[in-house]
């Protein structure tokens, strides 16, 4: 008797759960970065359009990986960085071309839209639109490590055991620039690019003893900086400014060899089921008032035209402090990565991580 009622209850519960997963309401499945979807923006969107937004937080590699595993299914809109679109698209075909006619292109900063379109075009079709942009540079506790001015300083004695990096491709690029090379110029030549990366890998391996850890998630790094376990790290401007607000001596510094400029985009996965909602979300997000809110939440800049006028004053001040005009001019914007280069980089990163 008891057994039966237990079974019935379990089955009922399972059925209930299954049913709750299969609600009929229109939904936008969004694959994005942390902090790009402040609650008030999502709520406003749902209120205006009746579309629910299901958010999955991720990063470049995982976005591509998830879409690769599903052949571009499972999500209706993704936000990879602009340089990481054409390579995976050529390899796996995980995105669908954008229909620019459905977009209100006037909402974008013109030059940025054109640059991004150019970088995300494959066989004449556009796959990405700019959304949020920012830079990679150094976050430094200026009291504990006043001497850190460039990437290579992370390997210096001043921050021994207290430096941190990501074991990801931006680090390779940054170190290449810091070592006086130009990786972007070598994009076209796999061989010379490979040799360059070998050098960078050797440098990073040597530098490894200086590192506290390879950071993965932004919050882990910030926690380390707050606690004083880390005094200098290569990181996004956002994190630096966020900490700067709490602890004035922690600053984001544009490195001498140049900050790396990135643009996160909107791209529609190949088997997205709700393109209309995706376009609605893009248009909604690029409205200056909405974009300003998103930018504030992410702590970065937006590609929405006119939103910067609405941006919080503090971010502007911090930007001004981190980026004198010369540093702005020195920002290295990522060009699209040709298919195949990521394999070279991956191997170098594996080597660096595995080295003792």
């Amino acid at each position, binding site marked *: 008797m008891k057994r039966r009622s237990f079974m019935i209850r379990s089955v009922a519960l399972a059925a209930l*759960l299954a049913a709750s997963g299969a609600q009929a309401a229109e939904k936008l499945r969004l694959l994005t970065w942390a902090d790009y979807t402040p609650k008030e923006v999502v709520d406003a969107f749902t209120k205006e359009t009746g579309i629910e937004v299901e958010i999955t937080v991720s990063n470049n590699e995982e976005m591509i990986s998830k879409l690769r595993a599903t052949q571009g299914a499972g999500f209706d809109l993704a936000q990879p960085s602009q340089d990481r679109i054409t390579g995976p698209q050529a390899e796996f075909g995980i995105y669908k071309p954008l229909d620019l006619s459905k977009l209100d292109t006037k909402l974008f900063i013109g030059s940025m839209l054109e640059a991004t379109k150019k970088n995300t075009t494959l066989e004449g079709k556009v796959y990405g639109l700019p959304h949020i942009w920012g830079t990679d540079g150094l976050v430094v506790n200026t009291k504990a490590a006043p001497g850190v001015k460039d990437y290579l300083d992370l390997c210096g004695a001043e921050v021994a055991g207290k430096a941190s990096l990501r074991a990801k491709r931006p680090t390779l690029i940054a170190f290449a620039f810091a070592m006086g090379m130009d990786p972007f110029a070598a994009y076209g030549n796999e061989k010379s690019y490979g040799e360059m990366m070998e050098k960078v890998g050797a440098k990073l391996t040597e530098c490894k003893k200086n590192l506290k850890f390879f950071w993965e998630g932004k919050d882990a790094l910030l926690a380390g900086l707050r606690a004083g376990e880390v005094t200098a790290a290569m990181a996004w401007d956002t994190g630096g400014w966020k900490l700067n607000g709490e602890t004035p001596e922690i600053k984001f510094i544009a490195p001498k060899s140049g900050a790396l400029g990135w643009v996160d985009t909107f791209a529609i996965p190949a088997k997205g089921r709700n393109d209309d909602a995706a376009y609605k979300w893009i248009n909604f997000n690029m409205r200056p008032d909405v974009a300003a809110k998103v930018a504030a939440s992410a702590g970065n800049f937006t590609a929405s035209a006119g939103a910067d006028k609405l941006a919080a004053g503090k971010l502007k001040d911090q930007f001004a402090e981190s980026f004198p005009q010369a540093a702005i001019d020195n920002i290295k914007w990522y060009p699209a990565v040709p298919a195949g280069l990521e394999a070279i980089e991956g191997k170098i990163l594996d080597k660096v991580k595995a080295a003792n």
Partner: protein
Amino acid sequence: MNKASLSYRLYILAFYLFLFAPLVSVAVFAFNASLFPAPPWKGFTVEWFTGTGALFGKPGIFRDPAMLAAFLNSLKVAIPVTLLSIVIGTANAFLLERREFPGKALLSMMMLWPLVIPGVILGISILAFSSRIANALETWLNMDLDFLRPGLFLVILGQLSFILTISTLIIGARLKKFDRSLEEAALDLGASRLRVLTTITLPFLKPAMVGAGLVALLMSFENFNTTLILVGSDAPLPIYMYGQMREGATPALNAASLVLMLGAGFLATLVALVSPRKEA
């Protein structure tokens, strides 16, 4: 037997300290009124369980929608896994204990195999295989088969692939101990085969079935390696917690861990209670 020497007993004491140090740390610091699960002790609080987020900027686990969603995802996986491991485990037990067929030795050996396959490999192999099936079906039938793509359905399959081995072993061991003359006695008293099954054999197996179910529930809730590979956008609790850990832990994680430990302890106690006493 002689009494153990003092140094031996000190070793045992040290061992148990070692055993419990990490768990006690996790549990204690769930109540630290601080943003970080680390010393110094800043006072006792239950904010990390029931707080609204006003105090630390992050809500307690019982009010954190993301945490609750992860828990719900875990349930969506664990319940089917539990039920299926009971049902299929029982069928397998009957197959192995009661039937003779060609290839039986091979099959029973294969059933043990998943126990020695690393979870990550179970994950990638199922991912690769289901992805091939889905691609093939899509080209032939022009049909989207989302359930064959990373997601909770694949997680269920991935966990089943090795949890079934365990449930089969548990239920099979009990069936092996079953005295067949009980079934014959029931038949002899006029019962139909179905009636024998439902009134004699299954009630005898019940403790093992419940035990296997509880073990499956526990393992499903805690599985990480296989799930990590197969998970789609809905992260079950361990995957969600892993993400949080990489982002830098807050005491909310300790709180969630404590709840998990208590839940697991409760389940394990149930297992101990339902499992038939071992003859010493």
